[in-house]
């Protein structure tokens, strides 16, 4: 069996709340395996579920307290800076904040090409940049003399994507890449991701709270809640037949694009407890216990992963009798 592209192995990240406050696990014992074939892996969950922290751990921005992250079988902390950046590239959420307003965005592309790709020849460098820009749907001559405020959000996000593509990475970690964009531009960026995956063979980790786009573009999905993965598997399966009560709630609360479902949506009430986030983070056992309609006494101990076909779900409801 071939080496997986990325293996997140029992990774835990602990944050301290306040100066002397209690510790909590923003990412708690998370396991993810990305096989070595181009795919889009979505990590979905609400705000505060630890999905961005997980992305930052994979990008080496945070160091995990426990566990390890392997890229092609090697611990990411043993890979030297340059080849790490060549292989794993980020795309951040806010395209307006990604570029220094005082500098032309083209400079970031040139620096990436020079320092990470290692091209010394100027002509070659400009040629690579022009080629990459036209691949993401931008025109080199339109970009070269502009400052960030002269671009729209969609164009800036395309620039970020072009920058990330320059080193020809194996993996792109995209943290909510379309949530700041206008609705009519979003789908184009998402289609661009699919095209990059199919044509250039780049894998994506796509972090999102938008389940509809996750369904549309991703091959696999992991649903996170308060630092743990509660359900993971092929995204079409997870999102059409959700097993975990939390996934079910997420899908039920998603507004449907069909006014005929209005009444049904309105009738489905959400049990939203007044429990604050911190209490859920430090809860022993299943973290969803305070909101779960099926909560039972067993839920006070942490459920293991139960495997049902190719979906893994972390809920006592699916214990084999």
């Amino acid at each position, binding site marked *: 069996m071939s080496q997986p592209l990325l293996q997140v192995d029992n990774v835990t990240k602990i944050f301290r709340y306040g100066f002397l406050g209690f510790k909590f696990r923003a990412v708690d014992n998370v396991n993810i395996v990305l096989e070595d074939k181009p795919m889009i892996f979505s990590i979905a969950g*609400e705000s505060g579920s630890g999905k961005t922290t997980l992305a930052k751990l994979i990008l080496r921005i945070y160091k995990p307290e426990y566990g390890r992250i392997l890229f092609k079988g090697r611990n990411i902390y043993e890979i030297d800076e340059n080849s790490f950046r060549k292989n794993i590239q980020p795309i951040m959420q806010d395209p307006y904040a990604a570029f220094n307003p005082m500098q032309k965005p083209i400079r970031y592309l040139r620096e990436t090409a020079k320092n990470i790709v290692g091209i010394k020849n100027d002509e070659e460098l400009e040629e690579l940049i022009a080629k990459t820009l036209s691949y993401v749907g931008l025109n080199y001559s339109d970009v070269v003399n502009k400052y960030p405020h002269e671009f729209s*959000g969609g*164009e800036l996000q395309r620039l970020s994507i072009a920058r990330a593509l320059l080193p020809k990475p194996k993996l792109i970690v995209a943290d909510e890449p379309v949530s700041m964009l206008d609705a*009519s531009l979003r789908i184009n960026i998402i*289609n661009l991701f699919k095209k990059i995956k199919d044509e250039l063979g780049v894998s994506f980790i796509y972090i999102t*709270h938008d389940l509809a786009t996750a*369904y549309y573009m991703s091959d696999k999905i992991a649903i996170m809640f308060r630092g743990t993965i509660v359900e993971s598997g092929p995204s079409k399966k997870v999102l059409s037949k959700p097993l975990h009560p939390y996934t079910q709630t997420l899908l039920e609360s998603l*507004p449907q694009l069909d006014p005929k479902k209005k009444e049904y949506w309105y009738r489905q009430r959400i049990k939203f407890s*007044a429990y604050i986030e911190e209490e859920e983070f430090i809860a022993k056992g299943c973290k969803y216990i305070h909101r779960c309609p099926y909560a039972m006494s067993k839920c006070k101990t942490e459920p293991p992963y139960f495997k049902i076909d190719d979906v893994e779900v972390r809920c006592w409801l699916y214990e084999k009798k």
Partner: protein
Amino acid sequence: MSEESDVVLKASNIYGEYVLSPSVSIKAVNDVSMELRKDDVVGIAGESGCGKSTLVKILYGFITHPLVAKGSVVLNIDGRNINILSTDEDYRRENIWWKIMSYIPQNSMNVLNPFMRVGDHFVELLRKHLKMERDEAYKMAEEYIVNMGMRKDVLKAFPHQLSGGMRQRIIVALALLLKPRIVFADEPTTAVDVVLQKVLLHLLIDKQKELRNSLVVVTHDMGVHAMVTQRLMVMYAGRVVEEAFTAPLFEDPKHPYTQALINSLPRLGDEKPRRGLEGSPPDLRNPPPGCKFHPRCPFAMDICRREEPPLIEYENGWRVRCWLYMKR
């Protein structure tokens, strides 16, 4: 349904312009007319920069430099007509805001005063508008907050001690405290996740059903519009391009922009490839001639480049601004 007496707010020919310098101005709202009725939920859709927030600010009468507004916004309070745009701000603050109209601003989780406890926000409002005593007001605030499904100890907390979602719920509760006849919610759920979004929307709809007032929801999220609104206005580059009842509009959108907005969105359970619009919204400092949408429109014709189409009555209550539907 469409009786004259039910109309609580009638806005006609509103223009809103940001005057940045004598030579540069941005026409953010361009000739918009609308009516709000009792027991009505109206949505305003469109992407950022289309003027939807500016329109709501003008309707609410919150006009600050450099925004200049023209037109008339007539508020009908039990038969008495008041033109919001000809009153001064002190009058609006005293008699209209909070009591008759209230406004839930964008990024509303950051509008609470960080030096005041949550309860004091409620008490201040009750003392100012209902001339209540402090203790009485506090008691009423406690009852109200429990009624809204929150614990009463949130009143003792400072805003930073609460999570973003809790603060947003407090803002919604504050806006609905004096039972206003019109509630404007400007992107009430953009910064929150889907679960909390549903909780907040439920809070808004429940109160709307109870008070039978009119609710205006401004958001770019078409899913929210489909789930919440009865009527929908779609704006593009400062103009209303389509206006209709929500249910038939989603069935068969008429304007090419509305079509793109609805059809480009991925849905659960549907893997059909979807295409978005090319290009980006026009720069309002220097808008294109003719129809503002023609550079991105797949059906653009010659006339679209020359002349701007009027808002055409397509069917009863269904208006669209497009040459495709002009009967000749």
